[in-house]
């Protein structure tokens, strides 16, 4: 077998070299056991690191989604006030945020997969380390250095292969979290710089400022219209338009107008 066999030979030669280094193979058992425990600690730390990264992405996703929802509301409000330019600006920003969210979702799924794999790897390693410890004690109690040789080889190569594999998996996970932390840091900076608005709601972005200004202008106009209406006797259609009824009301308005005119005539 081509690749499959070559790969397994590489793992095995690694284990053999480690065994050859020891004068008394029984010493190798204790040395290896300590290494196994160190690796186990490292894998567990790896799982925790990946989980931390995943949670950070979750927080950012909800922050960005909140922003996105807010921009959507702003666009609707701007449009209802007849400011299509402002609505367009809000929607443009929103689409920028949405692509960030999509990107984060991909990263989140990758981290989740990594976390699951590492958690299982930690469980496997834990079980193997435990089995190795039992075997180690038996071998040390029962055999001389010469006799122990083959039995140690059996126990050792199995765990050595697992350690190599798990060691590489932890390294990969660490590389992945490091690159994601860098990207998460960039998003945090973006959020903090105000380019994406402050989610705490303390700072007001330019679209909100403009909408507030429009709203207050609109309120003034409405109030004025109301006052004018009070001064002018008899209802007219004009103030109803100022009140800004929904555009859809136009189609409904006509049949409504007709009976009202009849009422006025009777």
């Amino acid at each position, binding site marked *: 077998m081509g690749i499959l066999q070559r790969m397994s030979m590489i*793992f095995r030669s690694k284990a053999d070299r480690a065994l050859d280094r020891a004068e008394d193979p029984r010493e190798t058992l204790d040395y290896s056991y300590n290494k196994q425990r160190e690796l186990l600690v490292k894998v567990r730390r790896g799982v925790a690191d990946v989980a931390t990264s995943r949670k950070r992405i979750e927080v950012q996703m909800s922050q960005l989604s909140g922003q996105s929802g807010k921009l959507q509301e702003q666009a609707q409000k701007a449009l209802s006030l007849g400011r299509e330019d402002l609505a367009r600006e809000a929607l443009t920003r929103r689409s920028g945020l949405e692509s960030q969210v999509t990107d984060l979702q991909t990263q989140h799924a990758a981290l989740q997969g990594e976390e699951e794999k590492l958690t299982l790897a930690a469980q496997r390693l834990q079980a193997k380390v435990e089995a190795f410890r039992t075997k180690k004690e038996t071998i040390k109690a029962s055999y001389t250095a010469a006799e122990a040789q083959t039995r140690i080889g059996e126990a050792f190569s199995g765990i050595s292969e697992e350690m190599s594999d798990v060691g590489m998996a932890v390294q990969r996970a660490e590389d992945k979290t490091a690159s994601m932390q860098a990207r998460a840091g960039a998003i945090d900076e973006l959020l903090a710089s105000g380019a994406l608005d402050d989610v705490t709601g303390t700072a007001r972005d330019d679209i909100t400022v403009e909408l507030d200004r429009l709203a207050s202008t609109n309120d003034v106009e409405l109030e004025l219209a109301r006052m004018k209406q009070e001064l002018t006797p008899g209802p007219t259609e004009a103030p109803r338009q100022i009140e800004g009824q929904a555009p859809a009301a136009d189609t409904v308005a006509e049949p409504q107008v007709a009976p009202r005119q009849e009422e006025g005539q009777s």
Partner: protein
Amino acid sequence: MIVRIMGEGQLEVDDTQLAEFSPLDDALAAAVESGDDDRFRSALVALLDAVRSAGSPVADDALVDSDLVLPYAEAHIDEVRAMLSGEGLIPG
């Protein structure tokens, strides 16, 4: 026959099923030679799927070394090449 999928653990596969893997393994070897990562990935995924469906997981506390080892699914062709050439990718 024990097969390790790197990052996933070991599987016990019946020796009679090895014949199924052979052409897939050859395709993977050819893909590694070609240096084409897309071709490599589809060959790797095909082999991984075949091994996963044929194998049953080895007990967690079993201390056995594998007869065959497969790279993890996301492995880049360059990583696998480095492993095969023994450039120290596998930590001791």
